Structure formats: structure tokens, C-alpha cells
């Protein structure tokens, strides 16, 4: 946990090509990889043929470079930036401009790429407003909340909530995220914008402890109501049966169970 696990741009320089992005339109990927036309029978001798996980173009010679042990050479001269990552970053910039035009400067804290998906990080206070703006914005119309997740970055001291938004009409696919303090995690709820966020937010509240203000029914969903603590937090201790499972090291609770199993009835 000493380095920040984030955007897909800082990958090691081993020349590993990334497979095709999920946000690539169908027509492009098919043609780029030179796939045969649909329904064409494959010749039986194509034993050495390899298929991409999805068929997007890859930088030349990456496949052989790895096998030939050329990783050392690759470290000296970093590979050219992946054009798909660059395209994602450029798209993220456009999202930033659209958001700033609507909500004012300072709403966007960071842009980049989450692997091959454009990534925009917005201010926590404007979280719901930003999602609502992009939902109705004529150029984006991100009307389908495809996935939502929360992550605990213990070393950095924040919780991150990320949504993947899809535009059914226009085909855009954007990763939008925000951060909130670990000790006072609070975010505006997305339920008024996307009702589908209801259970996802309940799950994030349950397992990570983020409070979503304005949520109509913020209760635990997976665990029972009397449960204490939030298991997906990185400092969660399953064997600590005191009231505060997130007790910092050196506290009375932690001292009582130095190996985390001492006072557990299961081990008695």
C-alpha cells in the first residue's frame, strides 16, 4: 500500500499491451484486429492463430518483446503512450469542460484514464450535481448507471466512490469518481438522479461506512442491523468483538487481542 493504486496510466514499462477497451464501439474493434467477417468458417490449420480478448489494435511487437526478454530494453526506452489511453484522457478533458461550464470552476479535481475509460474525479460536495448534469447534458446523456463501487484507501486516508456511467443513445462510457474523508465519510446520494443507486449505496454504507445524505432508506443491506464495523475497510478486524472494530493499533482494544484471535470464543 505504499503506492497509490489508481489510474491505468502509470503501468510498469514492460511493454504490456492492454487488451481492447470495453468502451470501444463494436465496428472499430472488429476491423482493426483483422478479424474474419462474421460467420466465415475458420480454416482448420489456424492452430497458431491467437484471439484478442477483444479485438483492438495493439502496439507493434509487444508480444514478442516480452518473450525475448526484452523487458530490460523496454525499461530504458519507455513504450510510446497507448493511443487508446490518450484518447480516453482527451475525452475526460471534454467532460471536465462540460462540467465546469455548468457547475463552475473547481468542480473537477482531476482527469485521466481508468485503464481505457475516461476518468473524471469531482469534488465531493458536487458529486450528485455532477452526475445529474451529465445525465441530462445533450452532448453526454449518461443515463445508465452501469456499476458503482467504493474503495478504502487506508494509507491515503480517504474512501473513494466510483461510478461507471453509460450513455445508451450516444455510446459514451465514463468513469466518474469522488473522494471523501475516511473518518467523516459523507457524500450526497445519487438516488434522486439514478434510483438504481439505492441498493448499491446501501451496500457501500454497509461494507465501507459511507453516509449518503439524502438517501431515502440508508440501512445495512448485506449484514444484519446490529452488526458493528464495516468489513471492507482495510483496518477491519473480524476478531475484535469490542464495539469499535476500527480501533487504532495500540489502543486498549487492540492490546487485548494482540494476534486478533485471543479473546475469540471460537478459539477458546
Amino acid at each position, binding site marked *: 500500500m505504499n503506492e497509490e493504486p489508481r489510474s491505468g496510466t502509470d503501468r510498469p514499462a514492460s511493454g504490456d499491451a492492454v487488451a*481492447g*477497451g470495453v468502451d470501444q464501439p*463494436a465496428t472499430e474493434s472488429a476491423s482493426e484486429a483483422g478479424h474474419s467477417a462474421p460467420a466465415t468458417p*475458420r480454416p482448420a490449420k489456424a492452430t497458431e492463430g*491467437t484471439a484478442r480478448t477483444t479485438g483492438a489494435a495493439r502496439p507493434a511487437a509487444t508480444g514478442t518483446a516480452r*518473450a525475448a526478454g526484452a523487458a530490460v530494453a523496454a525499461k530504458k526506452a519507455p513504450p510510446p503512450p497507448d493511443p487508446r489511453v490518450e484518447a480516453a484522457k482527451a475525452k475526460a478533458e471534454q467532460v471536465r469542460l462540460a462540467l465546469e461550464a455548468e457547475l463552475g470552476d473547481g468542480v473537477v479535481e482531476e482527469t485521466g484514464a481508468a*485503464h481505457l475509460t475516461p476518468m473524471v474525479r469531482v469534488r465531493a460536495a458536487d458529486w450528485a450535481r455532477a452526475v445529474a448534469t451529465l445525465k441530462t447534458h445533450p452532448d453526454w446523456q449518461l443515463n445508465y448507471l452501469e456499476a458503482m463501487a467504493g474503495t478504502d484507501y487506508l494509507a491515503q486516508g480517504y474512501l473513494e466512490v466510483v461510478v461507471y456511467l453509460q450513455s445508451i443513445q450516444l455510446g459514451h462510457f465514463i*468513469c466518474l469518481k469522488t473522494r471523501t474523508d475516511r473518518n467523516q465519510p459523507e457524500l450526497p446520494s445519487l438516488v434522486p438522479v439514478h434510483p438504481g443507486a439505492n441498493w448499491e449505496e446501501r451496500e457501500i454504507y454497509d461494507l465501507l461506512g459511507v453516509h449518503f445524505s439524502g438517501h431515502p432508506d440508508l440501512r445495512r443491506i448485506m449484514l444484519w442491523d446490529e452488526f458493528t464495523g464495516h*468489513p*471492507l475497510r482495510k483496518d477491519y478486524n473480524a476478531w475484535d468483538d469490542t464495539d469499535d472494530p476500527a480501533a487504532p493499533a495500540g489502543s486498549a482494544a487492540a492490546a487485548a487481542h494482540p494476534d486478533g484471535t485471543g479473546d475469540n470464543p471460537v478459539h477458546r
Partner: protein
Amino acid sequence: MSLIDEKDQVRTEEMLLNVGPQHPSTHGVFRLVVKISGETILDAEPVIGYLHRGTEKLAENLQYTQIIPYTDRLDYLAAMLNNYALCHTVEQALGLEIPERAEYLRVIVMEMNRIASHLLFIGTYLLDLGAMSPFLYVFAEREQIVQMFNEICGARLTYNYMRIGGVKWDAPPGWLDKVRAFVPHMRERLKMYDDLITGNEIFLNRVRGIGKYDTETALAHGMSGINLRCTGLAWDLRRKKPYSLYDRFDFSIPVGQNGDCFDRYYLHLLEMRESLKIIEQALEQIPDSGPVLGKVPKLIRVPAGEYYSGIEGARGELGFYIVSDGKDKPYRLKIRKPSFLNLQLLPQLLRGQNMANLIAILGAVDIVLGEVDA
């Protein structure tokens, strides 16, 4: 106290009815607290989590290959698709090349699994509605598929067949011919199911116009799969964001018209036909021999970053979101569970309905509790 009130009507009062957690029609341990007045449902509250095993937390302490058996236990009726969804996300992150034969084998088993899963939906749905025979019929075909899976990977339910970079085993001799023979047989049987069920007056009266919603509602609630396509929107990730080899096959995406329970039932039937088409084409195109596992490092370390990719599972978009800090275990793994999101709309659909429609509406959502609770 009289049971008849002044207007000569039966006096009713509100009561709470617990459906589940142990109830055959909930297809697992799912509890529904229903508030009813007479025969009318006033409100319903799903209670989930009885099967919560903390897969996401467990995955944080497992190497990527070790997570694959855990995915078997999510949607245990379509474990091949779960296997693939995880492997696909990791492969995307690594930029791996998959041997062609492996990718074809994956497509074949995935589509077979989709058929097995849809078959079970039709069987159990009809059973919920009081028709016993289809349940017994569908298990015959499902058994054939399960037997073939047993031959290719040694398991009937929790396959653990796929690996990052390919599949674990090549098809045993003669296996592909068995699949080849199965396709026309299955086609015949589908015709029979169609005749047996789709035209049945009693069935139609129970499902037509019940549990209706429109595309807007479905999109707003994050629904996917058949639950979304029944409203008329052709949103199938195999077409919209092609993964694997799906851009090589000729198949169509059946969509519904009314967004009711009947459409959801019928789409399952139609999708099996499309799956058969895909299997047939894959069997034609698959190379006769070749490696089934690509060049994968012994210890898989995903480059630091975050990755999301979804596939069209049997129940909707099944996605994996992985945050990696460059180690051999994920820093965070989040599963986008289609059943979980599809279930959200249920209280809204049930409100104001007749009590007898509860099972018809719940069954058509097609949930698997292993996935809902993860």
C-alpha cells in the same frame, strides 16, 4: 365482532406476511416482507443477505487464479459465465493473448451454460405458477449439458474451468461431436417447449400484462439482461461492447414489446435459439487443435490501476471492477451483480398487485441468491 361490515363486504385488515427465507418460490434464501390488505399487496420489502459470504473481502486475500472457484458460487446456475467475467477483466488488464481454440471453447461452454440456466428458469418459473411437467422436461436437457460439462472439466455445477489466459482442459476426444449432435436435438425440444407452454391459456392469463415497466424505469434502476430487453431496448453487451469472439458470429438480439412477465419468459426461450446459433457457428470455426492456455506468467501481477469490464451474463451485465496496486492479489474487487440490481424494482412492481401475482412477478425477475448476496 362481525366479519361483515355495513356494506356487506368482508372486513379486512392489514397484515404482514413473511415470504421466505425458506420458501421454494424464492429460489434460495430470500425473504420478502409483504404488507397485505385482503388479497392486495400494499407494500413489499425484500430482505437479502442470508447468503452473504463476503466474496469481495475474501478476494482481497487471494491470488487472481484462486478467486476463480469463488466466482463459481455467485450465480451457480451459470458458473462458466462468472469464470469468464473475472478472467476477462484480468486478461484486459494484462493485455493477454488468448489462443484461438481456448476462446472458441469458452464461447461454446458459455453459451451452453446460458441455455442450461435459461432452461432452469423456464422449468422453475412454470413450477412456481403451478405447472409441474415443464420442470421435469427441462431437467432432461439440462442434464445433457451438465454431463458434457462434467466431461470437459470434471464438475457438474462449480466448474472452475477457465483460467486467466485460456481454459484448464482441452475438450476430450469426441466431445465437440457430442455438442454438435446436441444442437439439433435442443432445437427440436425448444420447439416442443414453445408449443407446450407459450400457447397455454392458463399460463398466458397469469403472465400477460403482469409486472409491466417501461425502458425508462428499467434504465433508471440499472436493470440489465432480459429484464431490460423485455422493454424493447436491444441492449446486449455481446453486441454493444463485443468481447471474446462475439463479433464473429451471426445472431440476433430478441427484444420484448410490453415489458411484462410474458415477455421475460418468452425472451428466455428465444435467447436459447440464438445461443444455439452461436454454438453451431463456433463449432464450425474452431481450430482442430492448438494450445488452450496462453503464455501466462506463473504469478499473475496486474499492473497498478483500476479496471472494469462487464459481460452479458445469463441474468444481465456481470461485471468485475478491480483495483490493483501491482501485487498478485487485488486491492479491491467489486462484482457488478445483475440479479442484485434487477431485484431493486420488485417492491414497486408488487405494490397494488393481487397476492397471487407476487410469485409470477418475483419469478420472472430470475434471481439467483448466490449472486444477489455474493
